[in-house]
């Protein structure tokens, strides 16, 4: 599915959170959404997901305008993995994954669908199926939510800082898994190294506007890092992968200016 964000703005109580957002997500691509805290990444993901109606502009999934789709139709096309998934209920992993079938089911659920087993296999949590959600580690919870999202059989996968609270090994593991899926993915990421290593394209937000977008090489430049994050860095091509490699030299002081 090809997602086109056209001149989108969203504001709440006259405060504009994001504006003039234009972006194109090609089928099968993996796009990283970068930007400092409060730059509007989560808001943009929610607008793309159809959970917030843009105050201006539209988001199109192929020919259709996302916010005019019914909730059910939307949830069959677009799946979202939130930053924090919390429940007090004694749910099992399989039951959490089965929630992904809700947009496909009737009122009383339905027979077991193969996509639940497939999703657990893809997210590599088959061995956890009978476990209680409450006993899972952070990495296992994130994978379970990914499997739930995949059980929706979406054409677009939205991930909101999916690698937060994961150790390095689990961060790489998670992003490798997602890349291997081949589903169009937009992921808000904090870690620029990870973004450089796993994304096809990057979109960088600052104060609710896009300041740069394009391929990883085009976007990740020393000037951009200075402008957006207020940090000094050297960007060199990695000797073996050729992807941009970042070396930090400290802040420019712009954060407190």
């Amino acid at each position, binding site marked *: 599915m090809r997602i086109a964000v056209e001149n989108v703005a969203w504001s709440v109580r006259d405060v504009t959170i994001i504006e003039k957002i234009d972006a194109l997500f090609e089928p099968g691509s993996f796009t990283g959404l970068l930007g400092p805290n409060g730059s509007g990444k989560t808001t943009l993901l929610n607008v793309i997901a159809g959970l917030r109606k843009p105050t201006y502009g539209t988001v199109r999934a192929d020919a259709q305008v996302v916010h005019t789709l019914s909730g059910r139709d939307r*949830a069959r096309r677009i799946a979202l993995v939130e930053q924090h998934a919390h*429940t*007090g209920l*004694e749910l099992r992993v399989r039951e959490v994954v089965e929630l992904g079938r809700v947009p496909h089911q009737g*009122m009383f659920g339905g027979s077991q669908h193969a996509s639940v087993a497939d999703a657990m296999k893809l997210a590599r949590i088959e061995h*956890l199926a009978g476990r209680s959600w409450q006993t899972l580690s952070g990495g296992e919870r994130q994978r379970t939510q990914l499997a739930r999202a995949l059980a929706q059989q979406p054409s677009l996968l939205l991930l909101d800082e999916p690698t937060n609270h994961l150790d390095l090994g689990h961060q790489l593991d998670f992003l490798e898994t997602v890349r291997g899926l081949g589903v169009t993915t937009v992921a808000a990421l904090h870690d620029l190294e990870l973004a450089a290593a796993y994304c096809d394209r990057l979109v960088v937000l600052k104060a609710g506007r896009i300041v740069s977008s394009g391929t990883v090489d085009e976007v990740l430049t020393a000037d951009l890092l200075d402008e957006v994050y207020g940090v000094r860095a050297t960007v060199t091509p990695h000797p073996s992968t050729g992807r941009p490699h970042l070396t930090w030299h400290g802040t420019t002081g712009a954060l407190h200016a």
Partner: protein
Amino acid sequence: MSTARPVAAVRAPVPVGLAVLVVVLVLSMGLGLRVGSVSAPWETVFEVVARRLRLGSPDVTVIDDQIIWQLRMPRVLAAAAVGAALGIVGAVLQSLTRNDLADPYLLGVSAGATVGAVSVIVLGVSIAGVVGTAALTLAAFVGALAALAMVLVLAVGRSGALPPSRAVLAGIIVSQICAAFTSFVVLKSGQQDAPRRVLSWTLGSFGGVRWGHAVLLLVVATVAVVAVLFFSRHLDAFAFGDTAARSLGVPTERVRWALLVGTALVVATMVAFTGAIGFVGLVVPHIIRLIFGPGHLGLLPLSALGGACLMVLSDTLARSVMPGQEIPVGVITAAIGAPVFALLLRRDAARS
């Protein structure tokens, strides 16, 4: 690594639970028909019910028929209906607000109903010439609806949104205002037995229930249970909160409106006829969840059946424990419900 951690708790299968609770409910209702100021043998109970259901024409004395069919049967049916409604409404509200302490009286309907009841009991207010028990019922129902209306006025946002946190707080505000009014009126009234009469109304009773009331309560409870079952999967989707539910395609705002207001109307009807019987709606869903797990396709019907069983047994005890005197049914539901809940809570705590 995974073997070192506790695996999910063992759950009882839902179909077994449904079957067991149906049997327990039928037995409880039979017991309810048998026991009372005059105890009838099982045989007589069967004969009276069989004759009335035209399953045969056994010889039945008029007095047995009067006691079992005309007095006890509506009472037992009403208790089952109210218990089922309170059980299922409690389950729905706990899920919808993601609040373990939510009970059917969350939105102030019981406090509002009490204001209505007090107005009739103490102040002798009459509505459109209706008097006696009917006036009490009508006033309680009107009070409950007024309280619900106030809660909605306080809680609904400009865009029509009804967030659960605000609904709960508005419920507390309205309940407190109603409680202040009730206390003031009761304490300032010259009638010596006013506090006792109001307290016993508040704790609930099925004493005044006749066939007409029982049929009405049964219809309302049945409609409520069936309607709520249609929301099973939607309620499941609320497990991870509002945004998660919406991302799964659930129209959360509409579902919440329908369920919060719909269940409040059901509870208002129940409270008007029988008083605000506590504990069933709070405790039964928790007990069911601890035994059968949180899936609503099982939780909702099991909570309805469990509530019905608890209520029928409580009412039977209420009119048989102390000969010649009735104990308010709310006292019994708390006395049975709390220890059972405590036991399960400890079982759960011992595992974690």
